[in-house]
């Protein structure tokens, strides 16, 4: 981890995607990127001329795109599929479940505009369910990228691994968390900050909120550990259990519904291994809506203040 200064990166996540796809496609003719009329949103339009036969705009047909990706993989191609998260998952779920997961084909999926970062696209475009849906696909790997180093690393790593891989990301600038040489294994969490009173487990944009919450708690004499649980499935049960034993209380924080996502995954591990008091920060029984990120963070109770208050309530118990 770099520092406790929470600065936005210069490189947008979408830029990382486009540049990494270009690099992978140039190095391996079997890599094929598929888009569904959202190339300009993820900036792959800028690399189209360089890899015209390895980057295909399949039009606004997400379900078909997923099926085509499955077909491509039958003959050894390595398809990377991108669209906004809700279209990548909700919209194509049976296709990715059957032609993807069940048929054991090989599809890499990027779902962009995670949760509230869909901002002015509003409720139809705001997904708080994608992680939950993807966790339900047997043997699928489910990640949420929290910064550009991680996104680039994951995109490169999964090229070599067979199966269904889903990476959730924001499109624009993340907060810088990792040094360029950091590595991100499957099924591991990253301990970003150690502590002995409580553990905050977060993903995506909530990692920075968790670190800020830990700073505030430290000033109150509460020592919080912070884990970036980018690999939501498989999940790092060992690390969760270790910190449940060590800190005795756990708060999860996700830009997602508390049902089905990180909070569920962590509580499942705790319930079966080492139950401790816990609270899940996340969206509860609500749909998306239009608004700026700061407004939505407050509305859905996804701020560092919400994390701090949850910790205080748990510790008082």
């Amino acid at each position, binding site marked *: 981890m770099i520092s406790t200064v929470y600065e936005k990166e210069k490189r947008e996540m979408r830029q990382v995607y486009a540049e990494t796809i270009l690099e992978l496609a140039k190095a391996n003719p079997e890599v094929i990127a598929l888009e569904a*009329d959202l190339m300009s949103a993820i900036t792959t339009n800028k690399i189209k001329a360089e890899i015209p036969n390895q980057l295909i705009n399949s*039009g*606004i*047909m997400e*379900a078909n795109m997923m099926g085509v990706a499955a077909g491509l993989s039958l003959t050894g191609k390595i398809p990377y599929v991108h669209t906004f998260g809700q279209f990548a998952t909700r919209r194509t779920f049976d296709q990715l479940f059957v032609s993807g997961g069940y048929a054991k084909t090989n599809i890499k999926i990027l779902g962009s505009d995670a949760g509230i970062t869909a901002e002015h696209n*509003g409720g*139809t*475009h705001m997904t708080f369910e994608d992680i939950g849906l993807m966790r339900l696909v047997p043997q699928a790997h489910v990640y949420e990228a929290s910064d550009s180093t991680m996104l680039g690393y994951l995109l490169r790593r999964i090229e070599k691994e067979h199966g269904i891989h889903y990476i959730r990301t924001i499109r624009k600038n993340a907060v810088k968390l990792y040094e360029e040489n950091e590595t991100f294994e499957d099924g591991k969490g990253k301990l970003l900050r150690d502590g002995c009173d409580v553990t905050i487990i977060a993903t995506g944009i909530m990692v920075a909120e968790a670190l800020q919450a830990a700073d505030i708690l430290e000033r109150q004499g509460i020592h919080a550990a912070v884990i970036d649980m980018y690999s939501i499935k498989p999940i790092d049960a060992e690390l969760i259990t270790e910190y449940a034993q060590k800190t005795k209380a756990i708060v999860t924080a996700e830009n997602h519904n508390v049902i089905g996502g990180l909070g569920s995954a962590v509580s499942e591990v705790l319930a079966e291994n080492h139950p401790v008091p816990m609270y899940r920060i996340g969206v509860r029984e609500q749909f998306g809506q*239009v608004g*700026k990120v700061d407004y939505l963070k407050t509305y859905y109770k996804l701020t560092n203040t919400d994390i701090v208050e949850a910790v205080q309530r748990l510790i008082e118990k």
Partner: protein
Amino acid sequence: MDLEKVERFRDEIRLKTLQELHHLGFGHYGGSLSIIETLAVLYGDVMQVNPTDPMWEDRDYFILSKGHGGPGLYAALAVKGYFPEEMLYTLNQNGTKLPSHPDKNLTPGVDMTTGSLGQGISAAVGVALSHKLSERKNKTFCIVGDGELNEGQCWEAFQFAAHHKLHNLFVFVDDNKKQLDGLTKDIIDPIDFAAKMDAFGFYTCKVDGSDVGDIHQAILQGMNQKEKPVAIILDTIKGQGVRYLEELADNHHIRPNESDTAAIEQAIHELETKLKQEVGG
């Protein structure tokens, strides 16, 4: 149809659409502007609706399946009197009743929530089927985008509508030749929408989508037959009615730069002047 009245209504809707998006500072200009003439004919003449009673049972239904054209629809609803025109300036603001994509639970006059392309047309078919089954007179009008027709769901809806002979359903294809990433012919070539709709069992005609008279005529013809659902292919231009925006290559979602802003302000000024002169003259 009172042509002068509908043309004036059209200009008012276009003006309000531009003012609304200009106030917000970004948005789906291209696809909002290409449906203004159709909205003007529907809300200005054809549709039986009551702005003071948006849920009136006997009303005709309107579903904007290409939901990102919401700002155009909102302008039409405001000018028609569903809600105060000032509300247009809340477009997309935190806590707004006018989100990017229409939401039936937020906005008076919006019959169905749309924005995930391909879904509105199926709902429109359901509404039309319901009215047919109940032997009611209500008609259903639905606008789909040419890019939206990439979605297989649209073609499922069309098969269903034709099979059930939903002559009370009017589907407008906003054939503005562009989708989000560029020209439809470069992404998924539509080849020939009219031939496709005809083959799918629709009473089909193709009209100049910038001519309110032609659009009106096509609707009347469609109403004169009781066998088939109606498809009207609108030959339109993305950004229609503002020359500068029509010629702008990337005009799906615009965050205007300085020269874009100047052109948009100029268009607003021209429409305001025109509307004032008409009142004066």
